[in-house]
Structures are given as structure tokens and as C-alpha cells.
């Protein structure tokens, strides 16, 4: 085959940095991924608490300063509320996708698949259950 007489000149469009703003589906996806930054904040906050606890004397001086001075700060309280909201947003969108990762048949011979709402509801029950366990454990050990 000769290379002559070809007008081929495939055009490859550039990937724009704003590609995720062009489609609401992608915007929601990026927000979902973005919630990880807020989770990072919460992780560091908890880690700081553990350090303060370890550094405290018998009366828990450093730890109390952490609780009252740091956690009590209105900015930190607001940030924690944002973190809670974004975490719930992540959970809701992620739970909605999760049935895709489950493909089970109703029984050994059936060709009927387990409906997607079963794992979907299951995840919400697990969320409520885990929250209750943590809250009860927190109050019991108080």
C-alpha cells in the first residue's frame, strides 16, 4: 500500500480541565470523590486527638485542651458538620451504585436474579446499625 494520496489526519480533541463540569453526572461523581478530602480532615482530627490523649497526664490536661479548645471551636464544629453531610452524600451515592457489584441468583436453579434493592436496603440497615452501636458504645463508656 502506498502512503500517497491519503488525506487522513485524525483530529484528537484536547482533554479540557473542566470536562467534569460539562455533564451533571460527572460533576456529581467529582463531588463524590471530593468528599475524600473532608474525610482526610476528620482522620487528621481524630489522629490529633489520639496524640493529645497519649501526651496527657493523669488528669488528661492536653486532651481536655484538645476537646475544649480545638473541638469546641465554632469553625471546627462547622467543618465537622460539613464532613458529616459530605460523608452521608458519599454513602447515599455509593449505596445506589453498590447493587451493581452483587449478582446472585434467587436459588440454585432459578434464572431470576436477586433484586438490586435487597443489597441497597441492606447497606442502609448496616449504616443505621453501625451508627447505633457506636452511639450506644459512646454513651455506655462515658
Amino acid at each position, binding site marked *: 500500500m502506498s502512503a500517497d494520496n491519503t488525506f487522513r489526519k485524525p*483530529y*484528537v480533541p484536547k482533554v479540557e480541565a473542566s470536562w467534569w463540569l460539562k455533564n451533571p*453526572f460527572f460533576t456529581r*461523581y467529582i463531588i463524590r470523590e471530593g468528599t475524600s478530602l473532608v474525610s482526610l480532615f476528620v482522620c487528621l482530627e481524630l489522629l490529633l486527638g489520639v496524640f493529645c490523649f497519649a501526651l496527657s497526664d493523669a488528669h488528661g490536661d492536653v486532651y481536655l485542651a484538645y476537646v475544649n479548645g480545638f473541638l469546641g471551636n465554632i469553625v471546627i464544629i462547622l467543618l465537622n458538620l460539613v464532613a458529616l453531610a459530605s460523608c452521608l452524600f458519599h454513602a447515599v451515592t455509593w449505596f445506589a451504585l453498590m447493587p451493581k*457489584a452483587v449478582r446472585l441468583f434467587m436459588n*440454585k436453579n432459578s434464572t431470576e436474579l436477586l433484586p438490586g434493592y435487597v443489597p441497597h436496603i441492606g447497606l442502609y440497615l448496616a449504616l443505621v446499625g453501625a451508627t447505633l452501636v457506636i452511639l450506644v458504645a459512646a454513651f455506655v463508656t462515658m
Partner: protein
Amino acid sequence: MANDKIMKITVTRYRPEQDAEPFQQTFDVPYHNETSVLEALFYIKDHFEPSLSFRWSCRMAVCGSCGMMVNGVPHLACKTFLRDYEGKAMTIAPLENFPIERDLVVDISDLIEKIERIKPYIIPAAKDKNMPLTKEYRQTPQQMEAYRQFAQCINCGCCYAACPQYKINKDYIGPAALTLLYRYDIDNRDAGSAIRDEFLSSENGVWGCTFVGYCSEVCPKHVDPASAIQLGKVKSATNYVIKMFKPE
């Protein structure tokens, strides 16, 4: 066609022999209740722009040739109807994430290569190697149902146009090919899992997916590639653990 309604359709044009980059052209296209986007393109070709290029063949959502972006969303032109866009303007552009060859024609050879790469055919087990061609493989209805949905792919490329991971990393094997990989892996007649694991478990295999889920949203055949890929992750992780305890 006196009673026809009119839709403003903006089409992306690109003529490699004379254009440096794509441009837009707008047409007033009359339509009725049954007019598909593909037919609208024919109308434009017949009445305004004979040089307008686009791919098509079956006109019935079977061949997978006519994938394109309609108002920014990947669609089969033959399965998309103007009536669903009533009162809106319509823009038609070539399928995203593929090199544009001419007008609405894109080069999907990368997709085809990836589908070939994952060996989309039944690889018999060693014990079946000499099975006579006249002898059938047995399969229960449930065994068939396990992969049936994933076998409906027509290679139209809509899922690649919908995939942000493929957009930023062209080495990612991508939704359709990974779905076919999974489809053959779970077929009880197939024994090629170990051979395909190299692709399934690679960084550009299922683990390249961040579960955006838009591929499943746009798939015109309801294959649900995102599901096959997540199930592929389960399989890949299981393989990994098994290998940990049972090194070859």
C-alpha cells in the same frame, strides 16, 4: 411533509483535507414522530450537505455503527428520536474520546484492539481439547443467564465515550472489553480465566475503574458494563488471595 415540525440541529463537521479543526454547522430539519437522529442526518445529507459523513448500517440498534454524541450524551443515532428533544435544539458531535476521522466518523480501532486482546472467545479446558465438534457443551439456563446480559454488547463505543478514566488514560482497557472479558471468564464452557487474568487484574484492567457508572447509564443495549467491572474486581481480588495461599 407540510405538517412537520422543525428542529434546529447543529452538527460537528471536520474535513481533514481542508480543515485544521472541527467546526459547527446548523440546519433546520423537518421531523415527525418517528424521525430518528440517523434519519435527520440523512435529510441533511440529501438536502443540504452531500459531503456529510457518518457511519451506519443496520438502522435498528444491532450493528453498533452509529454511536455519536447527541446533546453531549453518547447515543445510537438510529435508536434516538427527535420527538424526545421537542422544544430543544439538538447538537450532534462525533463520539468522544476517539480520534475524529471525518465529520461524525471516529476511529475506534483502539476499542477493537482491546476487545481482541482479552480473547473474547471460549478457550476450552485441557480435558475438552480433543472433544469432537459434533459433541455439545452442556449449560444450564442459570449458567447461561449468568453472562447473557454481558454478551449483548454491539461494540458501539458509547461506553468509552462515557468513561472519564478512558478519557484521561487511553491505556485503560475500558468498559466494553472488560465486560466481554468477564462474560467469557464466567462462562462454564470456558477455561481461559488464568490466561485473561493478566488483563483483568492489571492496573489498566478492572482496577483502572473508579466506578463512575456512566457507561451503564448510556449503554444502548443495557449491558451494564459497570456491573461486570465491579464483579470483575471481586474476581480479581479472589484470584489474588487464592494465589497468596497457593503459589504456583
